[in-house]
């Protein structure tokens, strides 16, 4: 018997998580990925350190700014942000979000300590002279004592440990939600990390265009960033394939749910095609840029476009996962409407987060010698 069903009355609920959540997941993923990118050049030794040092400068700047701004977006996603202290008075070991609320400040403190230690030699040198910048350097360098390399390495490793904690909790928090089959897959946390790496390398390449101090190092940074994008995209493609194949085994409803939505909803179809086109374009463009770079041709003038596209892929993945999936009604027919309002729960929230990040970036660029030796020489010379 074939029957067709019409649902006559359906309530239309608003989405419970705002675009703030996308901003948090985006910034925190860039933060931990940039932290990893900064490690070889900061705590590595010999040739390795030398090769990755220019990249590490930008990566440190990125990890610090994103780590500072991400929690603001997270706080804004709470409907009762002033009650955030309940997280600490009512800590709940059964909840991944509660575990995250413990990890996040520890991660933030360890990143602050790590970046501060890495920048401290430059800060100490910048104390010479009078004026605003030297006085800031005097305050921030906290005296003449020298931090040993072992301290820097230890703090970097502690920050890395917490970074893995952030990767784990942000992924698990979403993946355990059985009620949303699209989220309920073990491949999702891995995908968050690989696309986060794509976005972080993209941001490195983008900032490299305008903020890198040394002309000669910039082509190297681009090549390294492009390589990271290529590898991370390749792993993302493998993860996506594995996820798709897992749908056939019957262990996960995630794939079936995705196909169902793509079949039933034109927005989803468009998003799926967009994701595929953007991903393939990014991979091809990054490959072409890397090839040109390896042939000693300058890609400085256009590699930043690849960087922007990489940022788009990282952001759009999170938008799709966190926002579009919420439009799938769990009980009723059809889809809830995803309305991005102009106010702080919508567009202003998205723009505001990026604005805050830009402000943090510019303030650091103005007052802190994050570029190290090169910047100091330029200022004094």
């Amino acid at each position, binding site marked *: *018997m*074939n*029957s*067709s*069903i*019409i*649902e*006559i*009355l*359906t*309530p*239309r*609920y*608003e989405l*419970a*998580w705002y675009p703030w959540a996308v901003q948090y997941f985006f910034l925190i993923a860039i933060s931990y990925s940039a932290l990893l990118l900064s490690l070889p050049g900061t705590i590595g030794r010999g040739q390795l350190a030398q090769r990755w040092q220019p990249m590490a400068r930008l990566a440190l700047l990125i990890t610090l700014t994103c780590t500072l701004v991400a929690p603001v977006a997270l706080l804004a*996603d*709470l*409907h*009762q*942000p002033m*009650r*955030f202290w*309940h*997280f600490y008075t*009512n800590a*709940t*070991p*059964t*909840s*991944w*979000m*509660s*575990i*995250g*609320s413990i990890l996040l400040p520890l991660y933030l403190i360890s990143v602050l300590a790590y970046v501060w230690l890495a920048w401290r030699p430059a800060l100490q040198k910048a104390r010479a002279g009078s004026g605003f910048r030297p006085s800031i350097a005097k305050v921030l360098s906290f005296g003449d004592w020298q931090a040993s390399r072992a301290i820097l390495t230890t703090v970097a490793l502690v920050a890395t440990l917490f970074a893995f904690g952030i990767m784990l909790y942000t992924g*698990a*928090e979403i993946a*355990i*939600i*059985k*009620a*949303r089959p699209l989220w309920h897959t073990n491949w999702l946390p891995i995908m968050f990390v690989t696309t986060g790496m794509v976005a972080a390398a993209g941001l490195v390449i983008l900032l490299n265009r305008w903020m890198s101090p040394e002309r000669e190092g910039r082509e190297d940074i681009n090549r390294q960033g492009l390589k990271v994008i290529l590898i991370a995209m390749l792993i993302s493609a493998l993860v996506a394939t594995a996820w798709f194949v897992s*749908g*056939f085994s*019957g262990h996960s*409803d995630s*794939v*079936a749910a995705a*196909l*169902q939505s793509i*079949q039933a909803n034109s927005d989803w179809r468009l998003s799926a095609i967009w994701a595929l086109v953007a991903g393939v374009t990014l991979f091809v463009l990054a490959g072409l840029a890397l090839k040109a770079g390896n042939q000693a041709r300058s890609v400085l003038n256009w590699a930043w476009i690849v960087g922007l596209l990489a940022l788009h892929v990282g952001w759009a993945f999170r938008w799709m996962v966190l926002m579009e999936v*919420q439009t799938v*009604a*769990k*009980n*009723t*027919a*059809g889809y809830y409407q995803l309305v991005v309002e102009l106010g702080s729960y919508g567009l202003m929230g998205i723009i505001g987060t990026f604005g805050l990040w830009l402000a943090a970036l510019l303030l650091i660029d103005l007052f802190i010698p994050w570029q190290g030796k090169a910047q100091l020489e330029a200022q004094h010379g």
Partner: protein
Amino acid sequence: MDFARRAILGQIAKLTAGAALVPLASITMSSSAVASPINSQPARREGDASKRYGMLIDLRQCIGCQACTVSCHIENEAPLGNFRTIVSQYEVSNESTGDFATMMLPRLCNQCENPPCVPVCPVQATFQRKDGIVVVDNEACVGCAYCVQACPYDARFINKKTQTADKCTFCAHRLEANLLPACVESCVGGARIIGDMRDPSSQISKMIAQHRSELMVLKPEQGTLPQVYYLGMDERFLSRPQAEPALWDVRDMDGKEIGYEFLDH
């Protein structure tokens, strides 16, 4: 691609088959708190441990009048557009004969024996009482909406007035005053039966015993062990039904969508 879809959708059908399996065994199960690994149920608190409230909805008696929806709305002061309970109404047509039938499906919180909304709460604001009712302490709730995501029944929402999570509580405040929940009180057909399932002489216990093999719960494959039982249920409606939404976009005379009142509240 089409083959792939069919193969995968077939897997889902297998999962939802055997849906009539009803988690009644859980009623007698005592819930003891074990050391809490992540995402396991925390200890229950408050409420009368000698009781286990449940609801039986006799769909044969439901006429879809929405009296429950309205009385709940008034009793619990939910903002416009949000519902602690609502009756889904479906029009089912037989494509070969052209016959029509209507299906009324009252929905509310299932007060699950294994509620997925509880362990995710990062501040222990939502918890299950010893009598099985899942409640929210909206003085503690931070409004993170994690529980809203975790509920497979869309039974929770963020209340725009309080900016905290809101849900059906079986009208716990009325039960404590020996009153029936608003929806049960106002039900024209007497379709909603609430009671203590640990008391063998309660009406709900008797009806469960009488109709045990016919009872069904929503989305049994989720493992939530819902404690709202449906009598006279059609298996096609256990999970999100494959249905076309109607009265979804309400349009005015010019074909322009009318703004929803609740958007501004």
